[in-house]
């Protein structure tokens, strides 16, 4: 199986992907694609991107042996510490890359959507760093769930626009960002934060996130002298997971993506697009999509705003379809268990998104036949942003 060559020239990963956008956005997408292919071969761009990753973001991030969790689960578990990136999550890798691309394209303004606020913060950060104007769209519901991130974006000089339609979460934020871009295609650059959207975004975001997997692969070979048995990462749109998975796709490594199981599949309140959606088109791409029988996109739920999205990247859709990656789910409760466990055992408070991967591993350790499997878990972000949610749960339990 060769996945390295995808997407094809039409932006497809097998049957998934493409460019389902209003005509006004086709020209901007074609320009973006050609600019991207140019800078991809440019040594100066590569040097600049690596300079900022090292000196601004703080890469490479450690691959940390979680000794107590390993002992508890009878496994050798390594955490890829994206939580130690500047701004607290992997999102900054992509934001730096795309901001440099926007600079190269002479754009003056960045537009972004955000769910949990991590991508919005990352975009506001690079806007400050590289002197762009910046507008971030964020669902009103997410603004409430993640108010500290709203404050951070404002401090960084960005305009934050709460989106007050529909479910008021990430999906609507992307709609609004697309509408802004349709209205300002010349001077504005849409800095999309996940491996979703029309081609070339799923490819660009993947390429700027693969540094996670490239580093992890080198690190595990140095430390353990062999490749891992498993990779595990949470999947919302799918940028942290594709970043870790991509460099291992041709290897003999088992890969598991964990979708948000929400309040349980039977309740219908989840965001497990691959497991319980069907193929559809949203935000410019064909992918697995949670939708009703009429083709309208259904409301989703996850305790973590970053996973609360009805679709999933076209490349993930493809990897699921061909069976290369196993996609499973972790409910809110399992994620919260993972959140507590990592905090107590390892002294690391994970983002609720990443806690889905940790919780899944704890819950499913017995499903792994190896006596002592070697596992890399992507710790995509730190949990500071989620303390309000955890606090509310405590109040609920103890109050």
């Amino acid at each position, binding site marked *: 199986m060769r996945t390295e060559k995808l997407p094809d020239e039409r932006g497809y990963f097998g049957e998934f992907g493409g460019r*389902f956008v*209003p*005509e006004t956005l086709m020209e901007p997408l074609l320009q973006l694609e050609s600019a991207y292919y140019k800078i991809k071969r440019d040594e100066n761009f590569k040097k600049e991107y690596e300079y900022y990753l090292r000196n601004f973001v703080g890469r490479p991030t450690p691959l940390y042996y979680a000794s107590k969790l390993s002992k508890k689960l009878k496994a050798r578990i390594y955490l890829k510490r994206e939580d130690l990136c500047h701004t607290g999550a992997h999102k900054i890798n992509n934001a730096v890359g795309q901001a440099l691309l926007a600079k190269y394209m002479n754009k003056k303004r960045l537009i972004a959507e955000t769910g949990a606020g991590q991508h919005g913060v990352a975009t506001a950060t690079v806007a400050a760093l590289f002197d762009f104007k910046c507008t971030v769209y964020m669902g009103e519901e997410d603004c409430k769930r993640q108010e500290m991130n709203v404050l951070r974006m404002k401090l960084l000089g960005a305009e934050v626009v709460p989106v007050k339609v529909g479910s008021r979460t990430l999906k609507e934020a992307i709609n609004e960002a*697309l509408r802004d871009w349709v209205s300002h295609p010349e001077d504005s650059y849409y800095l999309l934060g996940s491996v979703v959207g029309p081609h070339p975004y799923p490819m660009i975001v993947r390429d700027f996130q693969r540094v996670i997997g490239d580093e992890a692969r080198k690190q595990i070979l140095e430390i353990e002298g062999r490749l891992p048995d498993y990779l595990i990462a949470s999947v919302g749109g799918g940028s942290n997971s594709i970043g870790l998975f991509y460099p291992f796709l041709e290897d003999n490594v088992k890969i598991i993506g964990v979708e948000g199981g929400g309040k349980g599949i039977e309740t219908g309140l989840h965001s497990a697009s691959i497991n319980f959606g069907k193929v559809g*088109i949203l935000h410019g791409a064909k992918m697995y*999509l949670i939708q009703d029988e*009429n083709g309208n996109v259904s409301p989703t739920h996850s305790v973590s705003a970053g996973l609360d999205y009805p679709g999933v990247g076209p490349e993930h859709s493809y990897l699921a379809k061909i069976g290369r990656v196993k996609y499973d789910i972790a409910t809110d409760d399992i994620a919260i268990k993972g959140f507590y466990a990592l905090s107590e055992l390892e002294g690391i408070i994970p983002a609720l998104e990443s806690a889905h991967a940790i919780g899944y591993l704890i819950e499913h350790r017995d499903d792994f036949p190896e006596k002592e499997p070697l596992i890399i878990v992507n710790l995509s972000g730190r949990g500071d942003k989620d303390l309000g949610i955890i606090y509310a749960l405590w109040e609920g339990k103890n109050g």
Partner: protein
Amino acid sequence: MGSLQYKIKNRKKKLVFVPFFVAGFPDFKFLENFIIKNKDKIDILELGIPFSDPVADGPVLQEINYRAILNGVSLENTLNWLKDTEIPKVVDIVFLLYFNLLYDRLEEKLQKIKDIGVKGLVIPDLPLEESEALLPIFDKYGLDLVLFISPTTRKERREKIIKIAGSFLYFVSVKGVTGERDELPQEGINFAREVRMETDKPLIWGFGIRNKSQIENLYGLVDGVIVGSAFGRKLLEGQDLQSYFDELYEATL
């Protein structure tokens, strides 16, 4: 040449008048009465099927899409409604719908749409690249695919679009989403002049129309005009639609 193209070309008036309504809003009965009453004024009826995520639409049509879905409007019950009315027999209809509403069981849906008597489809998120492979399927069901030309569409691309477009081209007059604007955009006027030189295919002007003088300024420039959000706003605000509708209609004579 599609039947609509013939009709547009041989019109005995300045512009064809293409009102846009979202199916089932404010409700099916109101729309039916209004359309039947005004059947002789409507050259082509553009009927939108509501979608949860209408990214090409501005605030008025977003709100109407949202409310229509809450009212349970779908492609299926829109087709059932049309079947029981005179509308398809007395008015030429094109559907506007986002591609996800068609994607699943595509051919079954196209067959039903054809059977009702709908003439064409406007799919705002299906650009040239994605439509090429689907054209034979739309053809099979005799449905005209209406393609868009927008101010960002470059010349080489316009040539390709013009070549495969159906009865008319949906001329997007501004960079942006649907919604009323006070003036005709100069950018759009200049662009229409340029496109006019490149094709005989009818151009129907969309986006931004709300008053008579805008329509009058389109004489000789394009072949027709779509009015959507302006009517939608009247309906949302519960105001009288008829006199306003007549005023804009008369401007197309």
